[in-house]
């Protein structure tokens, strides 16, 4: 078991983290901001951090979570901007995250309900049961490639349904 400091970890992996985040958001300023968030979370966790040779994996898990949180905020923010543009008084006035998140949840659920059954099965097993795609393929008796194609098709349909959120 090795005790590590946040500074050491960040110094060692900063370039790789920058690439990881930069490749996704394609925005230098946002990348720097997200990197700061990774550092802040790492510093918060550092006092109780004791890694067993998996420091890199841990750091990238933080970075992935930071990126997902950013995407989530982005979805909600875009919905707020749309509400302001279209002059929806209730939403524009409130424009608060909980309300917009509730609306987003409802929209995604509607989109999932509208999926073809074969795609909905895959989505539900992945999202709600937490099965891997291989486990889903085994359970449903479908080839892994078929399951992956069905999941991609489902994500594409959901994205199209949420176009106003993006």
């Amino acid at each position: 078991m090795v005790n590590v400091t946040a500074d050491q970890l960040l110094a060692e992996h900063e370039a790789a983290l920058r690439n990881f985040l930069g490749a996704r958001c394609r925005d230098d300023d946002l990348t720097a901001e997200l990197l700061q968030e990774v550092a802040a979370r790492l510093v918060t966790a550092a006092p109780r951090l004791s890694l067993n040779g998996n420091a890199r994996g841990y750091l990238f898990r933080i970075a992935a979570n930071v990126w997902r949180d950013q995407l989530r905020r982005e979805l909600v923010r875009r919905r707020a901007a749309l509400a302001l543009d279209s002059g929806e008084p209730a939403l524009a006035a409130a424009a608060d995250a909980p309300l917009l998140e509730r609306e987003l949840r409802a929209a995604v659920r509607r989109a999932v309900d509208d999926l073809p059954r074969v795609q909905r099965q895959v989505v539900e097993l992945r999202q709600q049961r937490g099965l891997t795609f291989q486990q889903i393929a085994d359970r449903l008796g479908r080839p892994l490639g078929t399951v992956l194609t069905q999941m991609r098709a489902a994500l594409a349909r959901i994205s199209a349904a949420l176009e106003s959120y993006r």
Partner: protein
Amino acid sequence: MNHPTEDELLLLAYAELPGPRAAEIESHITACRACGATLADLEHGRVALDVALPQRRSASRWVAIALAAAAVLAGVVMMRPGPARDPTERWTPTTTWSATAGYVAGGKAMVEIDAQLTRLEQERYYGLPN
């Protein structure tokens, strides 16, 4: 390197790609804007689903939670103090002093038992060899 397949990008978005291949693709998307954009689309979809359909707790976790709750409840019941006594209630002694037997508890039968015990004690004491 060649572009990763869309299936590989999906597996990467869900962190299900084996480490070495994931590292290769991460390296690739740093330079390849098209693959980066496809990955970002998949991750957007994943995040939207995470918001709307959070993972359910498995049945075994619910059983563990139920057992823990039952243990806590049992502890609370066992530690709970009994009914409060009426502070005005007076204590009625079950023994009374007797000049002959020392004390009397519960009537004649107890007097006899007490007398026998006293006698046995005396016999034992005086009967011991020096």
